[in-house]
């Protein structure tokens, strides 16, 4: 017995020593001082990358390794909607427009890329003329023409092949029933009448109604040119023909992508992009914990998904000053809400909705989403701060009383005829742990004022198509509240607020105006915005935001943030404010990579 006990104790001690050794971390030498390239990393501080360039370097060469915990929906620019792919695809595809490659608010500025300028709209706003640069070449040396851009847009109309990307063209342009080029019987597959190509460098768009944000829509990679002869439909994702600084070398589907410099690319035609690294490798479907550890040990340079590190790495970064100095914590453009359905009793009464706004404990909601660093900033408005037209206000004391304003909530309950509270049901996605925690937190805080919340969970895949996004289901099951979130397709108030609050956005399935707000004040403001430009237009978004909150249709929870770690082996790193993640067009590798 004594010998067995000695052996067991020794074994346990050895294992414990291994675990303690593994868990202790003082950071590695490569995270301090000067990185292996000689680029200056000692001047880094937490959040430097929000407004300045981290690890500035002009070094050319090396390999930038991206790691991603998931696969893309598609690397075909015409068939993707993932934010990180929209960012990454700019390395190999030139869309008509892009966002300025600079840290800070200037990153929200839309600039021409393939286009020569911001385009010209007719007096009624229904016809837009754009010119593309002459001399831009594909990787095979052939020249890009305006017809190729038209063809690229046409591809997105065939949803049986291109099911993933946005569908703005069908909603904005004339000829919405165009079947797509694969069913197009016209010569050269140029049958979309909404776009004219009078010459090799000119495109004329015909709109159903004035739409000042058209250039934003043309910033999607669906406008990256595709020559019809090279189009392989669903297989195009395996090797899109490059116009950007890099081109596909190899791609093992959903495993690994390798990009090498595109020798046909010219920096003079593409000032927003850089061609620093001599190779870019993207590893897909890598366990998130491995991604984080590869970054922390400088074995990789970028977490491609751009939504921040996992909980274990977060703890390491927050408690280690060396790691923290190389981290950045941007608002990523996504906001988390609870929709308060204005058509489900008792929320048909404004005061009942306002009771929820006051009673919600924003601090516990923030904790549920991951706390102030990895979760987000307590929100008091629908528009997050990185949207053009953002205006800060706080109608329901979310900032001044983040633990909830019970007193005002009870006053509102009196006014809505429910002095002792009421019962309602809340829908949420039960396969999202943070959303589940947030729903539970809200349930507890509303309980304090007598509002009894029954939580009803749904699978994320069909949440918007069949449950909370289906008004008929919402009404028949009395879902007074629904959890959700939103990220803008482009960074102005229209891109963020229209789908959320315009009365004409209410749909029978996939509904995004989940609170079913049909306020003529808001609707008229959107109509007015389509006739305005510049500062006058920008000012409208704050009014819309204010009216949504006055209607108490949405309970804002947090403006989501990501904790992103920047290895010292990555150079020229900063946050691209629109994407809310690092700017992939700028990143290079240190000489040791």
């Amino acid at each position, binding site marked *: 017995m004594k*010998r*067995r006990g000695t*052996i*067991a104790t020794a*074994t346990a001690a050895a*294992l414990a020593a*291994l675990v303690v*050794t*593994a*868990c202790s*971390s003082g950071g590695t030498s490569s995270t301090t001082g000067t990185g292996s390239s000689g680029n200056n990393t000692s001047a880094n501080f937490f959040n430097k990358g929000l407004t300045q360039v981290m690890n500035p370097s002009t070094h050319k060469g090396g390999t930038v390794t991206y790691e991603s915990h998931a*696969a893309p*929906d*598609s690397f075909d620019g015409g068939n993707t*909607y993932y934010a990180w792919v929209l960012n990454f695809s700019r390395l190999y595809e030139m869309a008509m427009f892009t966002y300025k490659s600079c840290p800070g608010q200037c990153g929200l500025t839309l600039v021409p890329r393939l286009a020569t300028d911001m385009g010209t709209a007719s007096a009624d706003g229904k016809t837009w003329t754009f010119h593309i640069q002459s001399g831009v070449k594909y990787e095979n040396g052939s020249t890009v023409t305006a017809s190729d851009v038209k063809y690229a847009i046409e591809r997105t109309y*065939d*949803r*049986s*092949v291109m*099911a*993933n*990307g*946005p*569908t703005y063209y069908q909603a904005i342009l004339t000829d919405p029933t165009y079947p797509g*080029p*694969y069913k197009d019987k016209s010569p050269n597959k140029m049958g979309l009448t909404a776009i004219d190509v009078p010459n090799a460098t000119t495109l004329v768009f015909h709109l159903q109604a004035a739409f000042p944000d058209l250039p934003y829509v043309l910033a999607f990679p669906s406008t990256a040119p595709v020559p*019809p002869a090279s*189009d*392989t*439909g*669903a*297989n*195009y*994702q395996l090797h899109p023909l490059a116009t950007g600084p890099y081109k596909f070398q190899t791609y*093992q*589907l*959903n*495993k690994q992508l390798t990009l090498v410099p595109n020798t046909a690319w010219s920096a003079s035609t593409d000032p927003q992009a850089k061609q620093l690294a001599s190779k870019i490798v993207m*590893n897909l*479907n*890598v*366990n998130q*914990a*491995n991604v984080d*550890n*590869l970054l*922390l*040990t400088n*074995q990789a340079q970028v977490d491609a998904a751009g939504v921040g590190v996992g909980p274990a790495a977060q703890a390491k970064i927050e408690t280690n000053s060396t790691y923290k100095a190389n981290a950045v914590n941007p608002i990523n453009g996504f906001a988390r809400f609870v929709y308060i359905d204005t058509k489900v009793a008792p929320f048909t009464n404004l005061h009942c909705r306002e009771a929820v706004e006051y009673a919600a404990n924003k601090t516990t909601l923030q904790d549920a989403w991951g706390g102030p660093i990895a979760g987000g900033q307590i929100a008091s408005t629908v528009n997050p701060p990185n949207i053009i037209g953002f205006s800060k206000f706080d109608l329901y004391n979310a900032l001044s009383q983040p633990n909830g304003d019970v007193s005002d909530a009870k006053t509102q309950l009196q006014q809505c005829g429910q002095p002792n509270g009421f019962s309602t049901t809340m829908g949420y996605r039960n396969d999202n742990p943070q959303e589940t925690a947030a729903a539970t937190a809200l349930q507890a805080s509303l309980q304090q004022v007598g509002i009894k919340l029954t939580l009803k969970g749904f699978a994320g*895949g*069909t949440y*918007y*198509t*069949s449950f909370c996004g289906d008004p008929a289901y919402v009404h028949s099951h009395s879902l007074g509240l629904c959890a959700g979130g939103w990220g803008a397709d482009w960074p102005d108030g229209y891109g963020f607020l229209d*789908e959320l609050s315009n009365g004409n956005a209410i*749909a*029978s*399935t*996939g509904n*995004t105006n989940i609170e079913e707000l049909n306020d003529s004040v808001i609707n008229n403001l959107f109509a007015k915005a389509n006739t305005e430009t510049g500062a006058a237009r920008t000012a409208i978004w704050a009014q819309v935001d204010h009216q949504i909150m006055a209607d108490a249709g949405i309970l804002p929870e947090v403006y989501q943030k990501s904790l992103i770690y920047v290895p010292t082996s990555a150079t020229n790193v900063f946050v691209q404010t629109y994407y809310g993640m690092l700017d992939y067009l700028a990143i290079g590798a240190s000489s040791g990579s």
Partner: protein
Amino acid sequence: MIFFIIRRLFMTVFLLLVVSLVTFAIFFLVPRLAGQTAYQLAAQYVGKNPIPSEIKTVETKLGLNAPIWLQYGRYIKGIILGTHYNAGPDVSYCPFPCFGYSFRNQQPVWPQLISDAPVTISLAIGAGVLWLIGGVAIGVLSALRKGSFFDRFSMGMALAGVSLPIFFTGLLALTLFSYKWQIFPNVHFVSFTANPVQWAKNLVLPWIVLAFQYAALYARITRAGMLETMGEDYIRTARAKGLPERRVIVKHGLRSTLTPIVTIFGMDLGLLLGGAILTETVFSMQGLGYFTFLAIQNQDLPEIMGVVLLASFFIIIANLVVDILYTIIDPRVRI
């Protein structure tokens, strides 16, 4: 022997049909019975904020609006006779064995399985060799040195191997050897044909982690079997006849112990060839196991069907090989 193999191969086809039917029922029929519609299923394969007509288009493209029995019939027909697929500008032909096209990325399933199989095969066979040799050797030595320090220590480690889950030992191994000491940095799969040395180096950690778990069981079974066998009369007779001790242990002792070892090894290897989900996930090696995990997560039904059929094939063939090996190990066995 030949007739036995032919008979088993026919059984294999029948078994695979049964497996395909059951799998199809689980992933296609049961959700329908629970109320899921073809429309709801198609909605998962369309981008953000789809309009109803887009979902209907995808529903038709994927054949989800056909009756379940017809969908199954088309699937089996596709495996045997191949199928045509509309990829956009032209129609692709998917030859035998065509396991359909992924709902999510519209690529044929069979090439993806072939691409992932080397990862799982490398992982399973490498770990299998390690755990078989290691487990049996430790079991034999423990039996021969029963009650010694070596015996107690090795059985203690065997207990640890069986008790500690792979997501613990794997992560610990990565933390120490890949991230902290960087003895095996940046562990990811490298094809044997691309670089045999790197292939082996990057697989050392997953092999050891996987073998650690399985070797434990083999050590204990071998030890128990050897203890029983080495006490038999014929072993005493062999020693009395003056045979070398090594020959007594290996040819007479171990050989009798091997039958259950071979049975378990065949089952374990067959199961692993279908995908070592936990190991592949921990080490981010995209083999058939990780493929299965993603297919289920994405509800990509053709991928699920394909990987289940392939995994079943491996298990059935592994059992066939085990049955054949019996006749070699134990001459008393006839098939």
